[in-house]
């Protein structure tokens, strides 16, 4: 019976059989590329072969009908091949330029926005949230949908100074990673502990070990072995929650949304950088998170109007300086922005470099 079938440990499949022939044939032999229009990449191989890639957005969490729709399109235009990007955009490769417009028309007609290339705001890296995760403070799919609705034009056009990589995360763990703009949950109150459950559910030493500030200590509450939190020390990070669900960190009111900017993975020009806190205390306002969208737009428009070509968000701010960033965005600068974590001193201005 199936139950006993040994898995075929085949590992990561070889992409060659799945790859569009023109990519396969010119594998490792590409000469240059340009972008004829937003949403379209044009790559030319050393062989002279050309391929046009039409890129479109998806909701990532797709129903099978949507996936089949994408297949229909790939069959009609791309000899049955397509690929997805690390940001859940879908890419259709065609070998003749005159297929581009019909393909774009078809995609738009089916509801897939064409764009996300070059200096656009690409799809937001998307996590799980209420749909599936066991520890979320908010949803992911809904936040992404709400934001992409308001960033639709920015996705379809290439009007930004450089690529804009936005990430969201439904808890402070931040599976979405670093971003030019990152939208993360920021808890503001220590966990409420359900003492009755701790004893049976949690491996207490492991939980104690997870706390970055050693705020958790074993305790006895009406005879039961449980845990207690030193609220003076607790930084409300929620790290104790995954290993110990009774450490209830999520709160409809006090689990807020924070916005971070200037994260960067590439070593292009400037070294990779972590995103930096700019706004906290935004309400977790499902289903549309208007306050978050508003702040993101505010930051993006300041960036769009003021950054120079090729400057990523963080590079732009480095040039104009944080005082000007707060001035241009109208965002308040508070004591919470000053890093008081280990090694925080290195984030202080130890120079006479000033922006006025």
């Amino acid at each position, binding site marked *: 019976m199936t139950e006993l079938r040994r*898995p075929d440990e085949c590992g990561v499949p070889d992409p060659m059989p799945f790859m569009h022939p023109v990519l396969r044939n010119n594998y490792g032999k590409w000469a240059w590329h340009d972008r004829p229009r937003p949403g379209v990449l044009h790559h030319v191989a050393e062989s002279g072969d050309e391929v046009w890639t039409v890129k479109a957005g998806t909701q990532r969490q797709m129903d099978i009908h949507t996936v089949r729709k994408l297949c229909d399109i790939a069959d009609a235009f791309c000899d049955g091949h397509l690929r997805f990007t690390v940001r859940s955009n*879908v890419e259709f490769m065609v070998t003749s330029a005159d297929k581009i417009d019909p393909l774009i028309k078809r995609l738009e007609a089916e509801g897939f926005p064409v764009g996300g290339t070059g200096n656009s705001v690409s799809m937001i890296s998307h*996590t799980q949230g*209420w749909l599936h995760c066991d520890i979320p403070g908010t949803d992911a799919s809904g936040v992404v949908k709400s934001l992409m609705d308001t960033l639709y034009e920015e996705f379809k056009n290439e009007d930004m100074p450089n690529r804009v990589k936005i990430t969201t995360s439904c808890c402070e763990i931040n599976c979405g990673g670093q971003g030019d703009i990152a939208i993360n949950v920021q808890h503001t109150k220590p966990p409420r502990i359900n003492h009755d459950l701790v004893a049976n559910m949690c491996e207490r030493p492991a939980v104690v070990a*997870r706390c970055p500030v050693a705020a958790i200590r074993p305790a006895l509450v009406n005879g039961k072995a449980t845990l207690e939190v030193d609220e003076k020390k607790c930084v409300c990070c929620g790290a104790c929650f995954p290993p110990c669900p009774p450490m209830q960190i999520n709160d409809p009111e006090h689990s807020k949304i924070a916005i971070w900017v200037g994260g960067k993975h590439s*070593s292009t020009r400037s070294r990779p950088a972590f995103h930096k806190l700019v706004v906290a205390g935004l309400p977790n306002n499902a289903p549309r998170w208007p306050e978050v969208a508003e702040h993101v737009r505010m930051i993006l428009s300041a960036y769009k109007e003021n950054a120079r070509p090729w400057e990523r968000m963080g590079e732009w701010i480095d040039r104009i300086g944080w005082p000007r960033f707060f001035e241009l965005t109208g965002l308040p600068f508070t004591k919470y922005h000053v890093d008081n974590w280990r090694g925080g001193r290195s984030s202080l201005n130890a120079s006479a470099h000033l922006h006025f």
Partner: protein
Amino acid sequence: MARKMPETPLLDQLEGGPWPSFVTGLKRLAQDEGKPYADYVKSLLGQLEQSYRERKGFWKGGTVGVFGYGAGVIPRFSEIAGEWPESSEFHTLRIMPPAGMHYDTATLRKFCDVWEQYGSGLIALHGQSGDIMFQGCKTENVQKAWDEFNAMGFDMGGAGAGVRTSISCVGAARCEQSCFDEAKAMRMCVNSALDDMHRPSLPYKFKFKFSGCANDCSNATQRADMAVLGTWRDDMQVNQDEVKKKVAELGRKEFINQVIRMCPSQALSLNDDDTLDVDNKSCVRCMHCINVCTKALKPGKDRGVTVLLGGKRTLKIGDLLGTVVVPFMKLENDEDYQKLVELGQNIIDFFAENALEHERIGEMIERIGLVNFLEGVGLDLDPNMIRHPRTNPYIRTDGWNEEVEKWNARHGGGAAAAE
């Protein structure tokens, strides 16, 4: 008895707007009356609506898996199964896509068919680590769905304290910046570590990521325990005629501003005849000028990879970026690739033996020190691993002469350098 569609006033607000709506998708599934998943998804919508109303998640973990593997399924049981019994189990199968996420439609259609039969009909392409996530499966169907996927030639991805699913950038398949065969390197490294992926018993998770150049399209530098990034050792390739065209196109002032001035290492200067003067010894291989001048500039021909270790998110000690442990490693022939695989295995072995429980390799290196780590895995110390030497005198240097010997031994003859 078919469950009726739940009221979802909040979720319904996510159907408006131009971006594709996951809610519309879920509703389509929920209304596929007669399909095995219809009521399942109705129930899911009900629970999700409640999450939106109460701003609270209702899933808890558990243990669900497939025969022979210790990971790859993310079990989810509802805390409010009372109200939403049909979706009380909503597990996810993580399946590894072909490297580079290339598909043919036949495969995708087959995935849909399988998931129509055994799952919720909801597929996430892709997870942030790179998995196809088949989301929403009852315990009883997990093995069945898995058997079908596996029979198609697909394998389960990572979860828990083991090697995780990896990503390689599109790279060689469609990018002129590619400095190595990302897909090959990724498949060789991951496929040689499948035991640590499928029967996880490492101190904690371990992620590989592969990017063909410093642009790092796979986010390897911060999101991978072991990041493999393409680079080159010789001079970049310059086509001066194309440079002149670019200067003409942007105008001299803007060419200076966008290319010369933005080089992080002051390696570029513009000759009076509008050709480019590249100081390749100063160039840090950041890719910027090459990105701007896609026709005029290219990476050099002596290509290979740089390996960084330790990238991760914030838990415990704060976010960590990977740091260089191998400045350059040639990746040309199969032996070269095999060397990379062995490096990965050595590193994982050392990690397995020396990391504390729930400690990532970056945290471990932070704890034991880079030098001890390098000695442990047998890697040579190199100044490319640091931004600058120590600025404090707090070190006991009475072994200075022996250390000098070591260096001279390695740099006297190429012998030692070879290994």
